[in-house]
């Protein structure tokens, strides 16, 4: 099993893109936490595995005070241990830490989580609410797209055959801004989201919502935003009627499937509840970040 493949470990982005363009059945190999099980389950073997983890840029975290750049293959264990990211994006870091066991945390990454394009992936909703941009390299150079524009459906992406996600860029959040991520699984660890909900809230000086982003996972073929739920918050305190409106609008934004992990009606209801709770947590965190704007 797995024995016919070749293995390549380029050290530059250009070299990786060349390899992927040259070998038609080459596959990107990062954490491989989904790739190897997929091949074992009968997916066709690639001719070449192109390991991205020897490319420094893909495994580096840097911040310059106004934004953070996180390599697409950076292990989520490193992301969770990073004080700056944890302070700036607590929900995104929580979502990162929910992916699998400690063993998997050594290998899982934002780039893999997004490019694998599972509708139930934990980090994409949080990448979306934090407006993380994916820097994508390919034969024609580099382009930058919104995280929401990478996955196009279950297992499919907008990436070209020789394109790779190099890194993510996130702006340092403004004052009185924070995010949160909640997911429902039938137990407390080691499972796949039945519903995931990410929210990010910016409060004004009076405690009213000045900006809001809500994104839901596992309730549609890709991550979905809940624009009506976001609109219901603007100008209001994140409480009472506004939160009730968030719950209803978030549930209405979903397009879930029935499967063994949840029915359509159940997922829809839970999506509303988790969206409301994620907004509350994000707002509570945002309140603690007053001061200069």
């Amino acid at each position, binding site marked *: 099993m797995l024995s016919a493949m070749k293995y390549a470990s380029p050290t530059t982005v250009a070299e990786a893109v060349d390899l992927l363009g040259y070998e038609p059945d080459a596959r990107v*190999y990062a*954490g491989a936490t989904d790739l190897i099980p997929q091949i074992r389950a009968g997916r066709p073997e690639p001719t070449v595995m192109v390991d991205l*983890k020897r490319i420094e840029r893909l495994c580096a975290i840097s911040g310059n005070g106004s934004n953070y750049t996180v390599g697409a293959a950076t292990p989520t264990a490193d992301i969770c241990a990073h004080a700056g990211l944890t302070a700036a994006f607590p929900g995104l870091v929580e979502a990162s830490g929910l992916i699998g*066991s400690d*063993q998997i945390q050594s*290998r899982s990454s934002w780039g893999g989580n997004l490019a694998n394009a599972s509708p139930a992936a934990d980090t994409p909703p949080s990448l979306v609410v934090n407006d993380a941009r994916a820097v994508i390299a390919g034969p024609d150079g580099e382009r930058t797209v919104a995280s929401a524009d990478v996955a196009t459906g279950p297992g499919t992406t907008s990436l070209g055959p020789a394109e790779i996600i190099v890194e993510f860029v996130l702006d340092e959040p403004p004052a009185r801004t924070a995010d949160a991520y909640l997911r429902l699984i039938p137990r407390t*660890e080691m499972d796949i989201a039945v519903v995931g909900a990410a929210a990010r809230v910016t409060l004004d000086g009076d405690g009213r919502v000045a900006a809001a982003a809500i994104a839901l996972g596992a309730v549609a073929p890709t991550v979905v935003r809940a624009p009506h739920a976001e609109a219901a918050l603007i100008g209001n305190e994140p409480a009472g009627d506004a939160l009730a409106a968030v719950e209803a609008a978030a549930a209405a934004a979903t397009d879930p499937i029935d499967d063994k992990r949840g029915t359509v009606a159940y997922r829809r209801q839970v999506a509303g509840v988790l969206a409301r709770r994620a907004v509350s947590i994000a707002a509570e965190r945002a309140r603690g970040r007053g001061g200069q704007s």
Partner: protein
Amino acid sequence: MSRVHVTCTINGDPAEFLCDGGQTLLDALRDEVGLTGAKEGCGTGDCGACSVVMDGRLLCSCLVLAPEAEGTTISTVEGMASGDDLHPLQQCFLEGAALQCGVCTPGFLVAARALLDRNPDPDETEIRYGLAGNLCRCTGYDKIVRAVQAAATEITAINES
């Protein structure tokens, strides 16, 4: 096709082996290096029986391609004892009967050592979450958790003496 020559450090000793490009690190350790401590349980990264530490990171060797080991430092369960002296975790697993069939044990030991390296005094919840990537299908988890607690106490005592 030509095989890949890998040079690395395993349990403190220089090591080299030949492997296929698509061979997993688990298969290379077992079949090429002869270290059969790491076990294949699920082959999909769910059970942790193949746990090893590579360059300081605990991982499932069934999800790693062997050529990736080039230049790395790997530790496996075989490196835990010093000669005939068992590692405190091994001793506590023995004394506490924290194993039955034993297939999951090497993975638990490697993962528990990684946990204690990071957190020398974990509470029960931290141990259960820290070992959530390791499955045991016979003896149950209580004895394993208690053995890890006992080993943590012992290691702390050794380090303080």
